[in-house]
């Protein structure tokens, strides 16, 4: 019986526990009764009218300035229209009203509405962007009749120069799903991130950290009181090395053409201007509903989105003779006194190679060969050097690999040699091809910015710079390791190209300034020996190069001009460089300030 008694004690305690539980349950039940029934009306009102809204406190993106502090990119307030379908009494009437105010076809708005049907009936739909202030005012005034419309004030990126410097600055786009997954902490759905250029390369710096505000809004969606806020951190501003005036002048000079201009300081690689034509207006992308504009740009046969200065590789043409001359001197293949006779053609490996000058240059040394761009001289030099040594010196100048410019998407170009030929073409290198490469034709491909760093290295006495638009990001210049004074004959030759009696770029002379440079004309299709192509259809015309630096005594600015299907380098590209030097060093202009 003892055990039985203890079981009773146990049962009694268990039942006491059960009663306590039920008692507590009843107590909680009463609290629910108190909140739901006795105070329910108040909470219903809170839920109905005084909803809490989490609002993003958008951190302003950093402002971008040029080297003189001129604002290139800033943020402007933008008004967009959202429709909260849950609060619309009659969707048809809502659409009619919006159509009337915005003056757009009704189909456009109903189409937007239809596309966002999937997101559920509760979330507001973005109906239109970039409303004008009068439009905003009309929606505000109609607030009582149309509580379903909300005006969102956001910041829109504004590119002050429009198409100017578009390829350097880049643009923004809404963050993609992949980017969200890659960087979960920093990015949120609906954020805007840099897509190209500086906006992309310095996205983290420019992008701040969004804050958040929780507000109580009434039935019309107007904030009634603030529940709390967390401040964000604004994005950092960015000062570029670019000179907006020079940039605009360069773009004006290239207007209507297809091509690229690179202007940089050979002392540190700071880019002063970087042009790719044709360009686009980055302001087009500052909207979410820009699908049509985007398609038009992507579909454009002239590829305006492409940054030709860093993303396109071309044959360098005679500009490559600068590398050839350097290689020949460094390898001892030529001495400054060596002469070649140019009758206007030469035979190599059983083939006849023409000089661009049908009448021939006569007897020329290295400097004269550079001055007159004598092909026959460099055919001989190329044959003696061989493709392997040519390739080695091309790579010494960073051809065949990206320069590291802080703009992204850079192409490496191509330096061909025997190994490349076997790997990519399946046959050995033909010696005859070396003769073509010697004058910058053939498989060799370079980007305009690579040409600019090559010329800068010659100009600054043998240092490879990393081109950049933001000063603090660039590594220090690297020495090429050439013997001191080795480049002097090359520089003399380049000076004579512009200033000599037989120079090919006499049209680039600027009064009061010694310009040095090299022209290049690239055959697009094989033609009967350098016939003038200016009458040919556009896509068959030659590409024009001019790569220069000035002042020749103490170089401060390298300018590389490339015009796709422009014709002759001397006739098309050189005058553009001349105009840029005149703009910067002209009589009423102070010289470029010393690099920091």
């Amino acid at each position, binding site marked *: 019986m003892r055990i039985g008694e203890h079981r009773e004690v146990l049962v009694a305690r268990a039942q006491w526990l059960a009663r306590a539980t039920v008692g507590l349950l009843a107590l909680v039940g009463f609290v629910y009764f108190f909140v739901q029934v006795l105070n329910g009306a108040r*909470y219903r009102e809170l839920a109905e009218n005084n909803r809490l809204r989490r609002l993003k406190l958008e951190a302003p993106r950093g402002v971008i300035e040029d080297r003189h502090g001129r604002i290139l990119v800033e943020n402007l307030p933008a008004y967009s229209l959202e429709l909260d379908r849950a609060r619309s009494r009659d969707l048809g009437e809502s659409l009619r009203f919006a159509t009337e105010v915005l003056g757009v076809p009704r189909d456009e708005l109903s189409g937007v509405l239809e596309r966002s049907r999937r997101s559920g009936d509760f979330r507001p739909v973005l109906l239109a962007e970039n409303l004008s202030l009068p439009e905003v005012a009309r929606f505000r005034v109609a607030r009582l009749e149309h509580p379903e419309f909300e005006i969102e004030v956001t910041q829109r990126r504004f590119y002050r120069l429009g198409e100017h410097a578009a390829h350097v600055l880049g643009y923004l786009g809404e963050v993609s799903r992949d980017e969200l997954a890659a960087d979960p902490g920093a990015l949120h759905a609906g954020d805007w991130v840099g897509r190209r250029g500086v906006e992309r390369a310095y996205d983290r710096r420019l992008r701040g950290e969004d804050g958040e505000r929780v507000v109580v809004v009434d039935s019309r969606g107007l904030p009634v009181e603030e529940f709390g806020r967390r401040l964000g951190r604004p994005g950092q501003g960015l000062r570029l090395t670019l000179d907006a005036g020079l940039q605009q002048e360069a773009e004006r000079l290239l207007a209507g053409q297809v091509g690229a201009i690179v202007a940089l300081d050979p002392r540190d690689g700071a880019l002063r201007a970087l042009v790719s034509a044709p360009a686009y207006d980055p302001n087009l992308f500052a909207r979410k509903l820009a699908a049509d504009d985007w398609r038009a740009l992507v579909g454009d046969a002239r590829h305006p989105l492409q940054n030709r200065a860093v993303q396109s590789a071309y044959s360098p043409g005679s500009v490559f003779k600068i590398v050839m001359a350097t290689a020949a001197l460094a390898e001892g293949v030529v001495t400054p006194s060596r002469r070649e006779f140019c009758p206007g053609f030469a035979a190599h490996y059983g083939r006849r190679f023409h000089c661009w000058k049908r009448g021939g240059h006569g007897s020329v040394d290295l400097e004269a060969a550079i001055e007159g761009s004598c092909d026959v001289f460099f055919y001989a030099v190329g044959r003696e050097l061989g493709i392997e040594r040519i390739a080695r010196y091309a790579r010494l100048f960073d051809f065949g690999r990206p320069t590291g410019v802080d703009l992204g998407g850079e192409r490496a170009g191509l330096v061909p040699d025997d190994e490349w030929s076997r790997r990519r073409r399946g046959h050995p290198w033909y010696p005859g091809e070396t003769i073509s490469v010697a004058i910058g034709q053939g498989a060799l491909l370079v980007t305009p910015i690579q040409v600019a760093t090559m010329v800068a290295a010659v100009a600054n006495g043998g240092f490879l710079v990393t081109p950049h638009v933001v000063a603090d990001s660039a590594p220090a210049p690297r020495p090429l390791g050439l013997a001191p004074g080795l480049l002097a004959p090359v520089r003399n030759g380049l000076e004579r190209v512009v200033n000599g009696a037989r120079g090919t770029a006499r049209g680039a002379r600027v009064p009061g300034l010694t310009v040095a440079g090299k022209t290049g004309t690239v055959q697009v299709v094989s033609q009967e020996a350098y016939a003038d192509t200016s009458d040919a259809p556009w896509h068959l015309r030659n590409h024009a190069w001019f790569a220069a630096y000035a002042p020749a005594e103490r170089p401060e600015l390298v300018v590389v001009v490339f015009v796709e299907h422009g014709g002759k380098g001397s006739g098309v590209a050189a005058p553009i460089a001349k105009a840029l030097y005149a703009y910067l060093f002209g009589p009423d202009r102070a010289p470029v300030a010393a690099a920091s």
Partner: protein
Amino acid sequence: MRISSDRIALPSLPLPEAPPRLAQLAGLHWGLLASAAALTLVGLLTVRSAAAEMGGGYFARQLVWVAAGLVAMLVAFAIDYQRLLAWSTPLYTGGLVALLLVLPLGHRAGGSVGWFRLGSVGLQPSEFAKLATAILLARYLSAESESYLTPRQLARAVAIALAPMVLTALQPDLGGAAMFVPMVAGVLLVGGVRPRLLVAAALVALVVGGLVWSLGMQSYQRQRVLTFLAPASDPLGAGYQARQSKIAVGSGQLTGRGYRQGTQSQLHFLPARHTDFILAVLAEERGFAGVALVLGLYGAFFVSAATVAARARDRGGVLLVVALVAIAAFHVLYNAAMVIGLVPITGIPLPFLSYGGSFTLVNWIAVGLVLNVDYRRYVNR
């Protein structure tokens, strides 16, 4: 010889004669099963509404889990609970091993590793360890015949619960670890603890609480407690959740806003609305009427369980029922109080209602075990 005295003394107990098998089934406490089934039905409908805009097929998955739970209940019912008590040591050891294995092998989500992932199915070993611990506690304390437990027994009972509790806390899952406390408290209170020991235990709890606060808690957990004590201190974080939940509950008023019509629930104001805040969704959409129905069903479930405990054949049966129901009762009371803002927000779901695989499975196994104790109240096999 005291251990075996239980067995020897049994025939002298005034037990009723065992009726025929079918009548035995009819004598089962069907009210317990009915209230659990009704709660599950309400839960399924509410999960369907709460997860309607979420994607991820929560409703369909919960249906599968409920079906699995019913099968598990039948299994738990079929095996004689005496045999389960006899197997309690290996069961408990298995639970500890699972908890140990989940630490290096578990699926990492939200900073903790409480899950084994098998394809798209997640299993939470801490839930099953709770069952095993309940069975071992019932078995260990069933041997006692004094009206109060000895200090040695108390200490060993606490140690039995402490091992899985610490392992769960290491995941870290403090909410899950805390669930061992009501279980061990329930069986000890029913088993018999002297009042002065209760006072001492309260003091120890205070000290341990202080240590957990300063050493064992993540900063967000500390923040939640602070938020509870001073809601205005973090209006954007936990305070926001608590306020949204309370608005949802209150706006339901007497009869609710209608199925799938809750603006709070459907407008994504409510976090974890298909799991921990399922009651807020129900309260908003079905009003106080819905809440009263659910709380009433829980009341019926607990009273039924108490009836089963009262007519159980032996101490082991009583304590097993108490251990199992104590966890469920704590879940219900804490969750209901949390949803309406009476206690800090912690991840403690609502039995039978909240979405969750292992949790649904374990609740139905518990129902099976309680019915198991009830079914075998006559016989001594």
